C-alpha cells in the first residue's frame, strides 16, 4: 500500500479498496488451519491505542496481528477531562520511542487519528474516530456483501439508524457509492446529519436520504442496521425505545419489504428489540456473524499491506 496510513475510505480509490478485499479473501483460509500462524509480520510491533472502549474491534485487530506473528500490545487510554495531562503529541512521541511499526487508534474525537498520524512515524490505522469514519468496518462490510452477493456495485443498500452520529454509515456511504451502488440513508429527522443533501452530489448522485423506512427498504439487496446509542434519548433525539423500534426498528414485517434474498447486516453489538428484532438478527439472512469473520480477514489484509513489505 503506497499510503502511510489508513485513515478513511473517502480518500481511497477503487483499486486500493479492491486490493484490500482481494488480499483479505486470500487470507481468510488462515482461520481454518490447525496452526493459525504465518511468519509474515514477525518482529513488527503493533499497538492498539484505544481511547474509546471496544472489545470486538480491538480483539479483531489483536488476533489479526497475532496470526501474522506480530507483537501486539493493547493500551486503553482514558479521555476523562481529568486526565488532560497527556496530549496527543505526547502519545505520538511515546509511540516513536517504542519503535511502534503500526498503531490502531480508536478515539471519540473526529480527527484524532489524523493528528497523531502527522506526528508519528508509525503507520496509523483508524479504528473509528468520533462521527467521522470507521474504514475497516466499511471494508469488512464490503467483503461480506461481495461474498454473499458476488459484487458491490449496482446494489441497493439501505442504512438505517442514527446516521448523524455514525462513522460506520459515513464510511459505508463513501465505499458503496464509489463502486456504483445506491445507498439509502434512513433515520428519524432528528438523527439525520445537517446538510446531508449537499453531500448527495459528492457521492456520484448515489446517496439518497429518507425518513421513511419503508421507502429505504423497498427492494433493497442489503439492509444495514446501525446501533442506537441510549445516550441519544437523554438529548431528546427521540422520545423512547418503544417509539424508536416502532418507526425505525427492523422487524420481520419491515424486512419483508426488501428483496426476498436481502442480507441483513449490523456492525455490532446489537441492541435486541431496539433497532433489530431478535428473530431477524438470528434469522437465515442475517450475516452478522459473517461480518465478524470478514473483519478478521480484512484486518489481516490491511496489516499485511501496510507492514508486510
Amino acid at each position, binding site marked *: 500500500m503506497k499510503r502511510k496510513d489508513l485513515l478513511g475510505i473517502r480518500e481511497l480509490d477503487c483499486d486500493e479498496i479492491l486490493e484490500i478485499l482481494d488480499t483479505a479473501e*486470500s487470507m481468510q483460509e488462515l482461520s481454518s*488451519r490447525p*496452526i493459525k*500462524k504465518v*511468519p*509474515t509480520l514477525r518482529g513488527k510491533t503493533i499497538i492498539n491505542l484505544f481511547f474509546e472502549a471496544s472489545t470486538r474491534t480491538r480483539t479483531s485487530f489483536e488476533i489479526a496481528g497475532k496470526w501474522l506473528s506480530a507483537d501486539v500490545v493493547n493500551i486503553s487510554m482514558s479521555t476523562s477531562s481529568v486526565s488532560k495531562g497527556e496530549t496527543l503529541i505526547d502519545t505520538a512521541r511515546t509511540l516513536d520511542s517504542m519503535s511502534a511499526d503500526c498503531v490502531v487508534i480508536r478515539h471519540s474525537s473526529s480527527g484524532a487519528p489524523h493528528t497523531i498520524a502527522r506526528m508519528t512515524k508509525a503507520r496509523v490505522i483508524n479504528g473509528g474516530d468520533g462521527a467521522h469514519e470507521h474504514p475497516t468496518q466499511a471494508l469488512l462490510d464490503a467483503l461480506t456483501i461481495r461474498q454473499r452477493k458476488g459484487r458491490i456495485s449496482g446494489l441497493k443498500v439501505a442504512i438505517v439508524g442514527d446516521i448523524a452520529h455514525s462513522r460506520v454509515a459515513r464510511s459505508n456511504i463513501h465505499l458503496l457509492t464509489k463502486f456504483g451502488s445506491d445507498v439509502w440513508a434512513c433515520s428519524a429527522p432528528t438523527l439525520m446529519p445537517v446538510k446531508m443533501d449537499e453531500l448527495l452530489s459528492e457521492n456520484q448522485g448515489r446517496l439518497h436520504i429518507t425518513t421513511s423506512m419503508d421507502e429505504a427498504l423497498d427492494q433493497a439487496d442489503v439492509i444495514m442496521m446501525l446501533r442506537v446509542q441510549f445516550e441519544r434519548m437523554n438529548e431528546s433525539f427521540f422520545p423512547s425505545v418503544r417509539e424508536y423500534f416502532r418507526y425505525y426498528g427492523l422487524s420481520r414485517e419491515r424486512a419483508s419489504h426488501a428483496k426476498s434474498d436481502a442480507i441483513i447486516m449490523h456492525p455490532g453489538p446489537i441492541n435486541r428489540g431496539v433497532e433489530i428484532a431478535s428473530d431477524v438478527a438470528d434469522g437465515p439472512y442475517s450475516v452478522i456473524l459473517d461480518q465478524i469473520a470478514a473483519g478478521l480477514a480484512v484486518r489481516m*489484509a490491511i496489516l*499485511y499491506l501496510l507492514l*508486510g513489505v
Partner: protein
Amino acid sequence: MTLKPNYQLMNADEMRGTLNRLADEILSAHAGRDLVLVGIQRRGVPMAQRMAKTMGEKANVRPQLGSLDINLYRDDLTHAAVQPIVRRTELPPHIDDKDVILIDDVLYTGRTVGAALRALTDFGRMRTIQLAVFVDRGHRELPVEPNFVGRKIPTKDNEVVEVRLTEIDGEDAIYVMEKA
C-alpha cells in the same frame, strides 16, 4: 525494467513431453503411495493441475491437489520491488503422512522453495516433501535441489526465465529473456 526475448527454450510440444516425463518419474518414485501435488502460486498451480490430469490418464492415479501462496512466508531478501498479490492457499485436509510434491515453474535462488517448506510445516507432518520444477536455472542461494527437473540450463544474472502457460498467459512456451 524492460525485458527483451533472448531465445526460446521450449515450445508447446516440448513442454508437453517434459511434463509427461516428469509425471512418469514421480509415479515410479512413489508407486503405491498417497500423493499430493502442491502448486506454488502462481504458475505452479496450473502445472500441478496438468500433472494430475496426465497421471490420471496414464496410470489411473488420482493425486490430491493443493495450492500454496508463499508471500506470507517470504524472508527479507525475496521481497519484490512491488508488493506481490497474495493468492489462494488451499491444501487438502489430513495431509499428515502423505507424500507432497511441490511444483513450481522455475527454480532460481531457492528462496521460494525455502518459504514453501516453512509454510508446509504449519499444515501438518507430511511423510516426505519433494520438489519438481520445469526449469532449473542455477544461482542457488540456499541448499535446495530439485528431485525432478524438466530442463537444467545455465543462465546469466541479467536473464529471466519466463514460463508461459495457456491458463494464465494464453500460450505454452518457455523463453529466456534479457533485462534491457
